[in-house]
């Protein structure tokens, strides 16, 4: 079993708000992240896949295909977008880094054929990241 990690970057804006909370609760729980005009981050995404090395190609996965899937499923949908308003998962879920890692996993997992998705890591800043391994 070999693990392969591909990085990608995207920039997007978001804000945190739960309509079930009162405005005071939203401000208390989410602090500055509750500003309805949003704020942005440069996200770094690390996608790790695992699999056996194909004896003919020497690959676990064709990186060109992996890059195409990442671009189509994640970057085209999220890069330079306002996550709350433009990415369907976040019409009803709060676009925290936790939920972003889960949403990216759910977008990628069904599209990967040869290799198996092992981990999605999303850096919101260089000092904060979330890992999701597909655990229930």
């Amino acid at each position, binding site marked *: 079993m070999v693990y392969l990690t591909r990085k990608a970057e995207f920039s997007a804006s978001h804000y945190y708000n739960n309509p079930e909370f009162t405005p005071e609760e939203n401000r208390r729980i989410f602090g500055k992240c509750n500003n309805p005009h949003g704020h942005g981050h440069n996200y770094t995404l690390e996608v790790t896949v695992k699999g056996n090395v194909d004896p003919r190609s020497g690959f676990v996965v064709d990186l060109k295909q992996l890059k195409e899937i990442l671009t189509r499923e994640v970057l085209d949908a999220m890069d330079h977008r306002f996550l709350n308003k433009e990415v369907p998962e976040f019409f009803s879920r709060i676009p925290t880094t936790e939920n972003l890692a*889960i949403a990216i996993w759910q977008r990628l997992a069904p599209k990967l054929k040869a290799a198996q998705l092992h981990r999605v890591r999303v850096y919101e800043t260089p000092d904060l990241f979330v*890992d999701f391994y597909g655990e229930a």
Partner: protein
Amino acid sequence: MKVYLTRRYRFSASHRLHSDAMSDTENAATYGKCNNPHGHGHNYTVEITVSGSVDEKTGMACNLVDLDDAVHRQILDRFDLQNLNKAAEFAAQVPTTENLCRLIYDILQRTFHHAHLEMVRIEETMLNSFAYAGGEEALR
């Protein structure tokens, strides 16, 4: 769904590696330059990994305000710009980064209850890092 959240913090401190259980010659041979009696310092980076289910109402596994508050009060206020050898916790053990890792894990395990503590990882320099997951196999 279970996610792992990691936050990085920084502090600077001095230390000297010297064991009372060894002779001066053994200390010099074991710790080399780190045995310099006047000590030396590092800019440490500490990575704290916690895990938990994502709360549907907040979208969070752990509110960062709670984590930041605990790490600042329990770790950074205690060690930043200090001499580790003078800390009560190192009265009876050598302040290697291995021991610092275990100590920080134990302090947070005892005092932080907003999410499950998974791992403490410390970069002593850009070239050395140490990780402790409470005796369990570390993830990744």
